[in-house]
Each structure stands twice: as C-alpha cells, then as structure tokens.
C-alpha cells in the first residue's frame, strides 16, 4: 500500500476509535445535559424526561452512535442541545479563531526557544544558562491560569493592552490597518501566555539535545577548524540535534486545536476552549465529540508531519 494512503486509512481508523471511545466514556460519565433543570423547582421532572427523549438521550448507546455517524456523514457533525444547532456551525468559526491564536503562539515559542536553547547550550553553566534553567523551572511550577492572571494584571496596571476578547466592540467600523492593530493588541496577552507556558518544554529540549551534539567529535573538529560559533551551532549542530525536536514539533502541531483551552476561557478568546469547557461541563455531548474529533485530525496531521520531517532530515530512516 502507498505510504500516504496507509496513513490516511490509519487516521480514519483512529478517528473511528476516538469517536467510539468518546461515546463510551460519555456514557460512563455521570449526569446528562438536562440534569441541571432538575435543580429548578419550577420545572417538573416529566418535562426533563420529555426533553431527554426528544433529543434521543434515552436511546441505547449504539443507536445514538449510529445517529451521530449519520449526522457526521450529512455534514452536521452532530447536534448541540444547548445551541439547538449543528455542531459544525459552532466549531468552524471558533476553530478558526483558536488556530489564529495557537499558530502564532507556536510559531513564536519555537522562534524564541530554538535560538535561546542553542545559545545557552553553547555555554552551559554560565549565569544566563542558570537563569534560563531557573526561569523555566519556575514557569513549570506555576499553573497556566496563574500566568494568564499575572499578565492580565500587568495589562490592567499599565493600561497598555486590552484585557480580553478578540476584537473591540467597534471593530467593524475600523479600517484595515485599525483592524489589524486591534487584533494584534488583543493577541498579545493570550499569545504571550501560551508562549510562556510552552517555552520551558521547548527550551529544555533544545538545550539538552544540543548539549549532547556539541560533545560529538565532528563539532569539536569543526570548532578546531575555526568555524564561527553561529554557523557551527545552527548549520552543523542543530540539524544533528534534530530528531527529538522534530517529534516535539509534531506534538506542537497536534496540540494546535486543544492546547489553549484555559487561556481562551480567561482571556475571553472566542475559540474552541470556552465552547468545549462549557460543553464538557454541561454534557453537551456532540459538541465535545466534535471538538475532540477535530483535534484528532490535527493529531494525525501533526504526527504525519513529524514522521515525514524525520525522513527528510535523517535519510537513514527509511520508509519501508
């Protein structure tokens, strides 16, 4: 079988597996969407039961799954109980917003992490190496939520940045330039948070792989031949340190859709995060399944990308 075709088939199998497990888990998890109504003394339990059966929640699992598959094939991707609309219409807009945020964040964190990691790896033990290592430890020991709040607090104190949302209220009236500026200022806090949150992982991996490579003889030899440090580090050493970084990059890509959940909720970014969080908490099942399936797509794509890059960078890994 052709490699790509096989990967696509594997991807489809993965999607099916994920969807089945999603349904299974959700069936095991206690509570259902209409439960909250039970707490309202003005709604009778008969009404709640009637709503449940209207949305087919009283049907057995296989029937619900079959209905869902039908709806996926029909392009609806399921139905949201809360929004009374198709899941696709909910997800598409928000996925776009999330991707805008996370691709930028991923880009920036790699752009920062690689030079920083390479630089400090060249001088292990120096004060800036220790500083970066201490800083990354601290960043790791602080929950993500604390980072967002800290940045937002800074934004409030300085009045420099908007503290939430994606666009200002009068966005539509702005010109192209104004719109861009508005969007960019709104992006700063969430992107910075995401960068700070992923930076420790990346910097540490880059540094560790580089330290290993820098010990190798050909680098020592190259150093001996008087090749400049920048050229030495980036042209000679970095590609040799590539394998784990590529795997990591694949994981970054895989997490594009799912990695910014909390940050989005706190900064009011209209992405998948707030939707998914609310849907999970309220058991708006098909929205959750839809969101998980879309991030599965990214996962499939991310690991495919990583595997292909592994082949490209290291020709010894054969595609058999």
């Amino acid at each position, binding site marked *: 079988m*052709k*490699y*790509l075709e096989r990967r696509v088939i594997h991807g489809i199998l993965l999607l099916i597996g994920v969807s089945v497990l999603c349904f299974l888990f959700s069936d095991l998890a206690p509570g259902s969407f209409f439960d909250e109504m039970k707490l309202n003394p003005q709604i009778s339990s008969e009404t709640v039961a009637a709503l449940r059966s209207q949305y087919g929640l009283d049907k057995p699992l296989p029937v619900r799954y079959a209905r869902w598959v039908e709806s996926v094939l029909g392009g609806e991707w399921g139905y949201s109980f809360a929004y009374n609309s198709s899941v696709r219409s909910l997800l598409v807009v928000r996925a776009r917003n999330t991707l805008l945020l996370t691709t930028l964040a991923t880009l920036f964190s790699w752009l920062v992490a690689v030079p920083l990691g390479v630089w400090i790896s060249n001088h292990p033990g120096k004060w800036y190496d220790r500083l970066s290592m201490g800083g990354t430890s601290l960043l790791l020991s602080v929950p993500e939520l604390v980072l967002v709040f800290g940045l937002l607090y800074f934004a409030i104190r300085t009045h420099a940045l908007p503290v939430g949302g994606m666009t200002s209220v009068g966005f539509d009236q702005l010109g192209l330039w104004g719109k861009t500026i508005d969007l960019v200022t709104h992006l700063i806090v969430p992107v910075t948070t995401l960068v700070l949150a992923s930076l420790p992982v990346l910097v540490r991996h880059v540094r560790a792989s580089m330290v290993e490579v820098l010990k*190798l*003889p050909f680098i*020592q030899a190259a150093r001996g031949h008087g090749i400049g440090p920048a050229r030495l580090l980036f042209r000679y050493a970095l590609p040799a340190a590539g394998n784990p970084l590529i795997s990591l990059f694949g994981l970054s890509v895989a997490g594009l859709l799912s990695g910014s959940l909390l940050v989005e909720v706190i900064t009011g970014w209209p992405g998948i995060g707030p939707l998914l969080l609310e849907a999970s908490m309220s058991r708006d099942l098909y929205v959750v399944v839809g969101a998980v399936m879309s991030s599965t797509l990214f996962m499939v794509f991310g690991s495919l990308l990583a595997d*292909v890059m592994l*082949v490209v960078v290291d020709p010894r890994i*054969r*595609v058999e």
Partner: protein
Amino acid sequence: MGTEAVGRAIKPALVKARALCKRYVQRAPFSRKKFVIDALMDVDLEIALGCLTALVGESGSGKSTLASCLGILEKPDRGEIWFEGSKVSFANSRELTALRPKIQMVFQDSAGALNPRFSAAQIIEEPLEIQGRESGARLRARACELMEEVGLSPDAGNRSPLEFSGGQRQRLAIARALALKPTFLILDESLSGLDLATQAQILNLLLDLQTSHSLTYLLISHDLSLVGQVADFVAVMHHGKIVECGSRQQVFSAPQHAHTKELLASVGVVEAAFRTAQVGGGQ
C-alpha cells in the same frame, strides 16, 4: 562468466554465492512513484580460501549489498550462499549465531562504526562479550593483546575512539573484527578515506594478519590502483551484476567487459596497474 573456472583452478572456495538477488523498493514521501533498485541480479561469486579477492565497482553498483549478504547481515531475496562447503540458511538463527564469528566485517566509515560512547578497549571487548568468549580481567587482557597485534598501544585502551586518528581507528576496527578469530574478513571500503601512507601501513598490516591468522579477504573498493597492488582475484560489479571476474592479471591485462575497460581507462592507471600487476604476479 568465468568465475568458476578461475577460482577452481587455484584454490578451493571458502565462500560460494549462487544466483543472489536483492531488490530494494523505495517510495518517496508524498509520491506514488516507486523506485526499484535491483542491487543484486543473479550474482555468482566464489572466494578462494586464503586469498584476497577484490570486488570493484562504482558506488551504487551493489558492492556493499553483496558484502552485507556475504556478511550475513542481510538476507538475499533469492539465491544461495555456501560457506565452508555448507549452505547458509538464513532462516535458522542458531546456525547463524554459530556462523557469525567466522565471518567478520570491517566497515567503511570507521568513525561511525565505532560507538563514541565506548572506550577503545570496550570496543574490542564488545564482540567477545556478545559471544561470551571471555569475561572479567581476561577480557581486558585479550583486548590489550589484540590492540598490540594491530599496532596500537594498550595504554590507549581507555581513550575514546574519537581521539584516535583515522588510521588508528581503522586498526581498532580490525582488532575488533579479529577478536572472534574469523576465517573470512570482509573489508568494506576499509581503506578509502585514508592518505596513501596510512593506506599502505594498514594494507601491510592486513597482509601480515592474513598469513598469521590464515584469513580469507574480500576487499571491497572503488580504487583500482589499490586493488591492483594486492588482490589475487578481482571481480568487477556494474549495475548489480558481476561483469568481469578473474585473476588480477586476467582482469587488468585483458579486460573483457566494456565497463571494466572504461573503469581502467577513467582511472588512468591501466599502464601503471598493469606494471604493478606484472611485478605482483612475479612475486
């Protein structure tokens, strides 16, 4: 081809290959195109006991694949290999394990073939350890012995192979190959990449060892001038086939196949080689 005739005429064969075939199929990512590489196509070869047989060809002609097959590191798609008169069965792992120590290889890229995390002594000890031949202090003593044998100082045993020069690394690789007391040694481009003086030193070492350990060599090289100096028999490979095979004189003085002629011409050493061949033949 005339392989059989030549081989049989002089000495009995240690290794015989019959109709070996090996095909690699490779597919580029994101492409439906298949690359079919026939590395070996019906290759027949006999390697005479106690002689140095050279396998010559351009890079990509299938030399290394043939070496891997004869070194039982790769399984040919079709064909048979006979070693010391019995057929090598790739399916039987116990038999293979017994066979392995007798056939050893010295690889092309000595730096890559020596684990930089090991010390020189550890590298030589590795095959002994794997085969469970020696252990403890005896292991180290044997390693020192072998180092001395290939002309390395046993004091360097604790140093990393990376601290060695290219020639020293090659000696190290040879020492490691000798550790299991093989009868057949495959030298896969072992001498390329070394300067002429070092080449000559290593070559001398190999010739010394051949007599002291009664070894049979298969020297794989693209360097005809080198081959012309030392080989008893020469086989020329081209596009996965052996196009010419015979004693050194036969091949160098009267090349049959167009490719061999081309090879000789392009190297521009026909005359020189012929002369050395004459000298060599006279010894």
